[in-house]
């Protein structure tokens, strides 16, 4: 689900260094902190954009021309659940991170 931005590293040469250092580091990928994630019932969604306005990480995008109109960047969604609480149509729910849906 999470896209690891490692592609450019494969092209460049690696050097051994001592000490704590990273050019690609998993801890910046704050999506890895998540225990639950928001799931949208697109049939009930009214495309109002309230979830996007309240998202503290600013990683929700509303694409009104698409059927799956709420696009969440799961690389950075920490699963705080604010969008779910604020949704006026109650079309969002938090589901366990490891669930299949």
């Amino acid at each position, binding site marked *: 689900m999470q896209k690891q931005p490692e592609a450019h590293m494969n092209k460049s040469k690696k050097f051994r*260094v*001592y*000490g*704590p*250092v*990273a*050019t690609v*580091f998993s*801890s*910046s990928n704050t999506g890895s902190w998540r225990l639950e994630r928001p799931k949208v019932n697109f049939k009930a969604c009214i495309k109002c954009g309230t979830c996007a306005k309240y998202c503290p990480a600013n990683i929700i995008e509303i694409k009104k021309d698409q059927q799956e109109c709420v696009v969440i960047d799961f690389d950075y969604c920490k699963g705080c659940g604010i969008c779910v609480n604020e949704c006026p149509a109650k079309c969002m729910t938090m589901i366990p991170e490891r669930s299949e849906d």
Partner: protein
Amino acid sequence: MPFKMLDGNAAAVEAMKLAKVQVVSAYPITPQSSIAEKLSELVASGELKAEYIRVESEHTAMSAATTAQLAGVRAATATASQGLALMHEVLGMTAGNRVPIVMPVVNRGLAAPWTLWCEHGDAMSERDMGWMQFYCQNVQEVLDLTLMAYRVAEDENVLTPAMVCLDGFFLSHSMQKIDVPDQELVDAFIPPYKPKNLYLDTKDPMFICDLTGPNEYTEMRYQQKIAMDNAFDVIEKAQKEFSERFGRELDIVEGYRTDDAEVVLVALGSMCGTAKYVVNKLREQGKKVGLLKITVFRPFPVKQIREVLKGKKVVGVYDRSAGLGGQGGPVWCEVSASIKDLECDIRHYVGGLGGRDVTAEHIEQIFNELMEIYAGERKYHTQWIDVKENAMEIRQVIKNV
């Protein structure tokens, strides 16, 4: 070679200038102040082409020096006592991120009681922070060991910061005739700084000191341990090259008249000069005494110490820090552990705290006690060698008036 009259602080500045440091961030503190002042004068006059960062504390001084050096320059700072204690957190950052800063530490006791004067308690408190520690006997050694420290710290197999410890006032403010090498000679010994490991460069970005989990923390500590192990070879090579280039010998440890000695005193810092004087005096009286001077305390030179103390039956260790609550001071603990399998009666002495002079009389008393223990005429030794008899009632105040 030109000789100069310099005190210890001026010698440290001279060494940093010869190493062409490019960034200085120092906060003045007694007895280090004249290092910070002299460096700022050199920068202001243009004699030292460096950026001087005015900082509001030692915590920032160390942070600025560490990050400046990560950006690819040789950075300088210096401190003492409370300042070193305030740096504590950042010392670990410097060492763990493998930033090879060389820092003079002008040894002064820690409060309370407030003191301005010499003891080793400040540096000893930081002995396990991943820094190398070199202790100077005289002002010439301040200059020499600082130059050596740059070579060792910046070696690609070491990459570990170093403290050059000089006794407050006894060295920092005492003038001696110093052999200051020419700039060209030092340039050949200390090449321009090149970051060999971690660095900060916007064109080639890396993130330094990211959160490291239990799966890698141990390995990074192990890397530091290996660096400390590697340091001995690098120090030996640097000292050999130093003597070839500058004509002066430096040692990891120095056994002074220890070959046939019946008892040996272990010491570090400026008191070694006094101790050598006492050794010579007692030798004239036919007493077989010797001194083991430890110059490199971190990494701790177990092999070298065992070579000197092999076969010795009675050894004393002089700690210039109290080692409160421990079985003895930190130097005694280390020396004891390094000869734990040898049959040796090793006694600990504490003294010279908060600026109290380590006198020839006290060292003579220690040697005499050790000789008596050696001869089986004495069982106990005077652990706190220079404490006053009325220690428990030195102050009286009027209360409840």
